[in-house]
């Protein structure tokens, strides 16, 4: 899953973000002023330089006050007309052609030997169309925005604009607005086409005939009998089906979906009808744990400790050793009777790590294959002894598995099973102190692996509660909004750079911003760690401290002795890093705008995430607009 824990509410997030924004903007303004003063002073002397900069800043401010929306719209309209007459819609044709032939190359498991592959083709198609749209639209935005203004300046058409009462800010904003309109239309068309493409590629059914089914021998678990079998192959997969005596039932979950099956008897002949795929294009709204600390592991001896690393480089998931007290515990909060009266709808997306091949059978169950077993139980976070007995289940690798936990469970007291309720009044007459959920609405979900020497992999976000599904179409739209925001940023940077650079250079600079944007998060975290003195995740300190360490051949994992000199050096490092961090913050982190994984994995994009992305996006556009306005104001367009 993509979302690790709850995103903080908007107004808790805003003050911090705003202060970062203002610091960065201040840094930019200060650096800009100093640089332009130095350059101008070299050319004209310090007095005249000061006078000029004062005049430019004042006139730029006055121009902003005289801003006219009508002129901005006129210029935006021009940008739209320009794009249309330059046949920008060819990009749509390209996209259409790509979609037409994409099906040929996007077989989720085209290899015959791989027919039983369980990978979800929905994920593949969604990833493909969204990534494709993003790249195409970015490329379009890049070319349109970076070349338009330089072309105007080169062709001198700008002369007839700037000799009208047009403020430079209006030129910049008009361009940004115009290209955004074009991009929005293109994106909307591509979005609609993509939606249809994904829907059509995934829609399928399977044939199921009486010959494919066999009777299930009577079993205490299924006294009425029934049928089981396998559907015909379609879209490179088949399903195992289990039907009741009437011939109704569901298939297993394969490639992320299942089908409902029902039987129709006509003229003495029974036909089995397999319905459309279900649970495929969904937007789950998960309720994860609130904080990082709400997820923890117990080690093999049953005390709190780390999970096991089975040797994967990506240490996101930790593993539980089977048949030991090792467990993963999630403490969910906000569990009230009003919300969860019927029980806890739990979903799990686990990883199964097997240490040997072959089918794992259970002697107790007549040697039927049971696979790797796990168990789930609930416990009261304040009274860990108040816990339900574990419910065993067969763990499925990389499949979202649903477990509904009823409001009344069993617990073991002195070797006997006794009922225990989720909430205080779940069982009439139960003691007031006995409920699995605490008074403030917290409950522990404990996961263990039961199969000895096998492993279950989990991460914070792999187990969550789910009350409802959002609309997939709306989620798809939200995904496009985040692509739209990224396009807006590219247009903003393109236009801003083109106010003082030539077309190809402006394009390169914008593309460079886009690429840098994928690394800013990591680099920014490093700088922040130095500023805050967090040496655990990023050991070694800032540039000066690192140099001292190199000279003294000190290892980076040990803290230096806190002498006066070291303190001074660390303070200087922190000071340098404030500026470095501000410089990094000038580049938007494009990773933060990426919501494709949410849609592909079938999770609803939280509205607050989108709101925060939009705030950051528009913050950047405002800054880019101001910078562009100032640059164009300072520029001699005829030189």
């Amino acid at each position, binding site marked *: 899953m993509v979302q690790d824990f709850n995103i903080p509410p908007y107004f808790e997030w805003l003050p911090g973000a705003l202060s970062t924004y203002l610091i960065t903007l201040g840094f930019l303004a200060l650096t800009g002023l100093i640089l332009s003063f130095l350059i101008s002073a070299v050319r004209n002397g310090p007095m005249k330089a000061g006078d000029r900069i004062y005049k430019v800043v004042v006139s730029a401010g006055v121009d902003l006050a005289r801003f006219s929306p009508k002129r901005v719209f006129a210029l935006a309209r021009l940008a739209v*007309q320009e794009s249309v*007459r330059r046949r920008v819609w060819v990009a749509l044709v390209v996209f259409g052609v790509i979609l037409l032939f994409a099906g040929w190359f996007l077989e989720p498991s085209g290899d015959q030997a791989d027919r039983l592959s369980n990978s979800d083709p929905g994920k593949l198609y969604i990833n493909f169309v969204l990534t494709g749209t993003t790249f195409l639209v970015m490329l379009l935005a890049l070319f349109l925005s970076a070349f338009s203004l330089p072309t105007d300046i080169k062709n001198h058409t700008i002369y007839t604009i700037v000799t009208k009462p*047009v403020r430079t800010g209006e030129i910049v904003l008009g361009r940004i607005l115009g290209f955004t309109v074009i991009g929005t239309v293109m994106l909307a068309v591509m979005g609609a086409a993509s939606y249809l493409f994904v829907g059509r590629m995934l829609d399928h059914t399977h044939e199921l005939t009486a010959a494919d089914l066999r009777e299930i021998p009577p079993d205490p678990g299924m006294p009425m009998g029934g049928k089981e079998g396998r559907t015909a192959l379609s879209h490179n997969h088949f399903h195992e089906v289990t039907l009741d005596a009437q011939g109704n039932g569901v298939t297993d979950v394969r490639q992320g979906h299942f089908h409902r099956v029902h039987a129709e008897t006509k003229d003495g002949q029974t036909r089995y009808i397999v319905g459309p795929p279900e649970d495929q294009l969904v937007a789950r709204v998960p309720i994860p744990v609130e904080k990082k600390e709400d997820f923890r592991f117990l080690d093999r001896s049953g005390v709190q400790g780390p999970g096991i690393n089975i040797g994967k480089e990506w240490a996101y998931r930790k593993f539980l050793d089977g048949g030991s007290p090792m467990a993963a515990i999630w403490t969910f909060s906000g569990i009230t009777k009003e919300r969860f009266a019927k029980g806890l709808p739990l979903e799990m997306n686990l990883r199964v790590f097997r240490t040997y091949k072959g089918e794992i059978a259970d002697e107790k169950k007549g040697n039927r294959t049971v696979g790797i077993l796990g168990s789930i139980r609930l416990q009261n976070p304040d009274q860990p002894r108040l816990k339900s007995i574990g419910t065993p289940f067969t763990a499925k690798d990389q499949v979202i598995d649903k477990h509904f936990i009823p409001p009344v469970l069993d617990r073991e007291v002195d070797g006997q099973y006794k009922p225990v309720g989720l909430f205080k009044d779940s069982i009439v007459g139960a003691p007031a102190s006995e409920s699995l959920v605490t008074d403030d609405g917290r409950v522990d979900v404990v996961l263990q692996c039961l199969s000895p020497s096998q492993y279950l992999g989990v991460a914070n976000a792999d187990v969550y509660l789910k009350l409802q599904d959002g609309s997939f179409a709306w989620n798809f739209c939200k995904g496009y909004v985040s692509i739209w925001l990224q396009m807006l940023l590219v247009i903003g940077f393109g236009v801003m750079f083109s106010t003082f650079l030539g077309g190809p250079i402006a394009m390169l600079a914008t593309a460079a911003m886009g690429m840098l944007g994928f690394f800013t998060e990591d680099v920014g975290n490093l700088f922040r760690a130095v500023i805050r003195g967090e040496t655990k995740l990023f050991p070694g300190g800032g540039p000066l401290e690192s140099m001292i360490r190199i000279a003294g051949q000190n290892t980076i994992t040990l803290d230096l002795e806190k002498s006066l000199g070291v303190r001074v050096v660390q303070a200087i490092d922190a000071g340098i890093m404030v500026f470095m961090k501000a410089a990094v913050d000038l580049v938007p982190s494009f990773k933060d705008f990426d919501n494709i994984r949410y849609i592909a994995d079938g999770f609803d994009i939280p509205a607050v995430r989108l709101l925060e992305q939009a705030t950051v996006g528009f913050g950047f556009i405002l800054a880019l607009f101001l910078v562009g306005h100032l640059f164009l104001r300072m520029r001699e367009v005829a030189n």
Partner: protein
Amino acid sequence: MVTEAAVATPIKPAAADTIVETRNLSKVYRDFWGRQKVRALKALDLTVHRGEIFGLLGPNGSGKTTTIKLLLGLLFPTTGQALVFGKDATDVSKNERLGFLPEESYLYRFLNAEETLDFYGRLFNMPSSVRRRRTAELIDMVGLNWAKRRQLREYSKGMTRRIGLAQALINDPELIVLDEPTSGLDPIGTREMKDLILKLQSQGKTIIMCSHLLADVQDVCDRIAILHQGELKELGRVDSLLRVKDVTQIKASGLSDDAKAEIRAVIERHNGHVDSMDNPTNTLEDLFLSIVRDSEARPGKRAPHNRD
């Protein structure tokens, strides 16, 4: 024989108020490193009054276009000041009352004539009714009604020039700056452009034009400044600059040879000297225009040859 200038009707400025003023205006072009490349304009002092047609004359590279660009705020002065309507030339608000026709008509070639004028009208925040009326009037005035729906990329140079002039007039400006207004125009277009400039002046507008076509400047300008290598070499009224004070010109028609001889005798009696006495010739422009007009009046026939 040098003749007195007798074309442009001298119109006295309605009021002596100053529309454009430059004080010690200089421009030095520099390279990327700030090193001086060219000194394009040296300490120019000029004043242009309301209602006059002011010509900037000079060979290529003399600083005419630089002066105009400085007046429009397209370039920033290295030293000195350029004031338009009493405001600094870099102040955008001056553009409300200004129209500019650039040397080449730098317009958006993907727009048609109507869209072009509508777009520039929008830049002045004109209401749509005014914009429509003004667009129709101007297209009519420059004679492009037949081609108003064609994209400018299909226009000939002369047509582009006309639509360029129309966009300069969209806001009914008080000051019109024309950079080489007649370049690219055929003789008829040139004549029409000159007539239009005079008509604009009669409406009380101030016009600054620069050109190296001396005949055009002589035909329309009240005052001229001659620039060379960035320096102002001459400034004054065209008629007084061109007047040859010690030569008298008499124009008469219907004189017999005897009468001509008598006049010659009178001049010599007064110690004057007859430099030449012959029949005047038309200018080629006059000849061309009259042929075209005849041809328009009688299409299909060859123009008569009875001119001598």
